[in-house]
């Protein structure tokens, strides 16, 4: 994969829902929605395309917790934000055997949100103390928990079809 277009084509054939977004507004180029069972093929695809994992993070919204993965590439400007909704058991497959850096990021997400990453070799508390396993500090209390729609950008300003300018020139 040498360009953003080839990345989009490869992701669409996974299949995954890919959308090009305005970098100046969002700070990333592609937004991807994935089914949990596509997460590992997705990671393998990006691993083969020489991407690196920037971070794994969670977002607690109604109806279900969402885990996001951000990837970027050393060779060309293509920052990808992939969102996956956890399954009924609050779990997702691990990608720490594909991207070894995910090991700690997944442990952190387990600490803060209680997401269980299936197949992770060592899912022990990383930043929290060992006896704080049930704390899950970033889960929202019911009164502060919002719907997914409440934290979704209004569609009007999403330039879905406008081709984004080449990576090098677009600053903040």
């Amino acid at each position, binding site marked *: 994969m040498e360009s953003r277009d080839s990345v989009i084509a490869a992701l669409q054939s996974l299949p995954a829902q890919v959308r090009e977004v305005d*970098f*100046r*507004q*969002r*700070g*990333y180029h592609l937004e991807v929605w994935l089914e949990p069972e596509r997460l590992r093929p997705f990671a393998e695809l990006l*691993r083969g395309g*020489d*991407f*690196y*994992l*920037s*971070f794994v*993070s969670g*977002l*607690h919204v109604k109806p279900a917790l969402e885990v*996001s993965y*951000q990837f*970027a590439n*050393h060779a060309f*400007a293509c*920052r990808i*934000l992939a969102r996956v909704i956890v399954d009924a058991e609050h779990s997702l497959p691990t990608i*720490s*055997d594909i*991207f*070894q*850096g995910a*090991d*700690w*990021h997944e442990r952190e997400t387990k600490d*803060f949100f209680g997401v269980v990453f299936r197949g992770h*070799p*060592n899912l022990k*508390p*990383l*930043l*929290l*103390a060992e006896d704080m396993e049930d704390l899950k*500090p*970033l889960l929202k209390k019911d009164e502060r928990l*919002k719907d997914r729609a*409440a*934290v*979704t*950008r*209004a569609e009007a300003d999403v330039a879905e079809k406008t081709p984004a300018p080449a*990576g*090098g*020139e*677009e*600053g*903040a």
Partner: protein
Amino acid sequence: MSTTPEFREHRYVLNMGPQHPSTHGVLRVILEMEGEYVMDPQPVLGYGHRMHEKMAESRSWPGFLPNAARMDYLASLIYNHGYVGVVERLAGIEATPRAEYIRVITSELNRLQSHLLWLGVLVLDLGAFTPIMYTFEDREKILDILEDVTGSRLTYCYMRVGGVVRDIDDKFIERTREYIKWQRSRMPMYDKLVTGNIIFRKRVEGIGEFTPDLARRYGLTGPVLRGTGVAYDIRRAEPYSVYPDFDFEIPTETGGDCLAAYLVRVREIEQSLRILEQALDRLPEGPFLAKVPKKIKLPAGDATYAVESPRGELVYHLTADGSEVPYRMKIRVPSFSNLSILPEVCRGMLLSDLCACMGSLDLVIPEIDR
């Protein structure tokens, strides 16, 4: 990818930290040793964990500005920059041109003092006491300059959404120009004292095997990545602020060892000086703070803002729900991913080489723990 160390009779466990001079912070590394060789180093994090991401959810977004400075105490202004950047991006606010220049000038001064501290303590970790005395003399000059304009010496809270809190004056510019001249005059000395020192070179040359593929697997960024020959710097790859205006190089080395990371950082000092010179020459007139409403509600949605910290890629990912309080703030810190390579890279290394390796990664522990 080991879990619990296997017990073997000739192996013993050595506990390094959480209070150890060469971890530069409260980091603990459990080392499974065989003689003087490290067979399995496992970092233990969380001693300085303050849950900054939770604090961000419980205060209005300007209230998080002081927190931004307290994660990486050596790059406070760069953390400031990333934070105001993500809020501006989400709210659709633009800082004034003069403010963007001031941000770059102060950020680069901040980067310089971080690199100077690193240069001193890396060599100190390897047993040479003298260079830190010289680098701290240089660093002191930067802290004095920044103190005048920001009011503090370490945990700066200088940037605001739309600009900066105070303008820089002629005295600042004059002192910074003097500093640039001074720093350039010092580099030949460091070259002789450290870079050309045979003992230093024996301690770092060929130590650590960093490769571009390893960097991708772990998300390693910053000077250690550039030491493997990959010219990846967020200031160039995803330009932010006014960095596209300046002519500077992204230094790379191909060694992939601690020496390569060292050489990249030393060469970056000169590049930061170049950016400073150009920014001072072209500093536009005008307001240093844009007119922004007192209370800004962040529109629903999310935004990412990535900046290059002295240690690598720093990313703020902010999700907002239309209120004045961030709904979720994720902070991706470079040292977190950089440290996670330790078990793989340092396996089979001499204990003294592990210190060289950790010194080359330039870890800041409060940033990892957040």
